[in-house]
């Protein structure tokens, strides 16, 4: 198992309700291992625990059962070795673009000159050069998401966790951002765990597409995507794989 960046081993998550003492099982016996630099997409019905899984990997929640390992070390808390990108960007509105991107290095006490350099480089990487002094309220949705990605990259994490990052963007911006993300991924060789509702997006981006079962979520089936990049959405093999995965997912939605 050389180059296994992230190992999710038999993870279960049960949420206890504050009142009434009832509990909800969000994840059950979820196992998946992701290689260094691998791009994995998670798809599944709403409420199947995709976001919960990302939060567990990020260390924001603790698994009730099983364990998660990054480079062989168990995850116990959030850390700069994992970058997280939310659907709604979650930028700090009181910080300009540079301030947002430099947040990670800043809290890790990187010297000011160096953190500025890091921020500039990451901003350039996501194609936003020249708008470093703008504030989030002045940016479009696509630009905000680029800033959020740059911020996640600033700590140079080995794993990028993305929770429906393009879900709130219009179709055109979404396609553009998918290509941008592939370029960034290709240049930086991060392992990416990408949660999405869209099977097409998953097939367009991923090395492997993981279909999850309905609640409680676990792995239903894994589809390797052996198409070369850049992929064509109208290609026959693309469409047939997309249909196969869609059918597999539809079984869960019934």
């Amino acid at each position, binding site marked *: 198992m050389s180059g296994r960046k992230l190992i999710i081993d038999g993870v279960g998550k049960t949420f206890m309700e504050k009142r009434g003492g009832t509990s909800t099982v969000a994840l059950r016996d979820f196992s998946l291992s992701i290689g260094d630099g691998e791009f994995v997409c998670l798809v599944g019905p709403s409420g199947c625990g995709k976001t919960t899984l990302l939060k567990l990997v990020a*260390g924001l929640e603790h698994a009730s059962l099983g364990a998660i390992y990054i480079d062989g070390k168990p995850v116990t808390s*959030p850390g700069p070795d994992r970058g997280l990108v*939310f659907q709604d960007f*979650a930028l*700090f*509105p*009181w910080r300009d673009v540079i301030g947002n991107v430099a947040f990670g290095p800043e*809290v890790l006490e990187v010297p000011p000159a160096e953190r500025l350099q890091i921020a500039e480089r990451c901003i350039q990487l996501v194609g936003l050069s020249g708008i470093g002094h703008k504030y989030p309220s*002045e940016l479009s949705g696509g630009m905000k998401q680029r800033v959020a990605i740059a911020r996640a990259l600033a*700590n140079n994490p080995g794993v990028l966790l993305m929770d429906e990052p393009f879900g709130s963007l219009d179709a055109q911006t979404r396609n553009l951002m998918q290509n941008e993300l592939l370029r960034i991924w290709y240049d930086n060789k991060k392992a990416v765990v990408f949660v999405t509702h869209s099977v097409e997006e998953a097939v367009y981006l991923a090395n492997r597409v993981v279909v999850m079962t309905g609640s409680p979520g676990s792995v239903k089936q894994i589809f390797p995507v052996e198409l070369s990049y850049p992929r064509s959405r109208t290609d026959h093999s693309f469409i047939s794989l997309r249909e196969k995965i869609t059918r597999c997912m539809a079984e869960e939605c019934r």
Partner: protein
Amino acid sequence: MANLPQLFPTPVSVIVALGQLLVAPGPPGMAWAGELMGNTLISLWRVIVGFALAAVTGVFLGVIIGWWRNARDLLEPVIEILRPIPPLAWIPLAMLWFGLGFKPAVFLIWLGAFFPILANTVLGMENTPHKLIEVARTLGAGPWQILFKVGVPSAAPSIMAGLRIGIGIGWMCLVAAELTGSNSGLGYMIMYYYSTMEASKTVAGMLMIGIAGYLMFIGLKKLEDKILFWKAA
């Protein structure tokens, strides 16, 4: 009702009164400033000191109560009992404790401004978006960094709103304190000319209270725009 113009001053007589008050010698220790400006400066100074104390204590306690559940459970009952007592109800006690003049006025201003500042700070801290805290944690921020780099800036608009409300209430408390517990300041001045039945000078003093309050409000608004510039656009 023998002398109506004296009770219902005309605009002209108010302007004349303003002129007279400007040149009349100021209160003890401030003779150089003239009666009107001397009393205005005395009142402003009391408000600034009382308001500054309220801002420091209100924001400090508000951050603590709004951020930590335990602190909230501990302190909230005390605050909720004290809060409904109108600041004016404290005037007798303030005079017993502090006598007349500067100290009771500052105490009352502090009391009046403290609660809105506290309440708004607590609200702002509690409403810190959970997502921003999560993002900060994944970027490696520790608990104190999250408090000062996420919680406090996120609460800043609410804190500023509290300060704006606080200075308004503080100004009202000042005038109330000076009406009874003081021998200087704008509140004392209008009360003095009530006793001499010079309504035009009372109105002139009221006008000054309005103008000074307005200027303070504008100043705070300017400061707010400067601090919360990121909210514009």
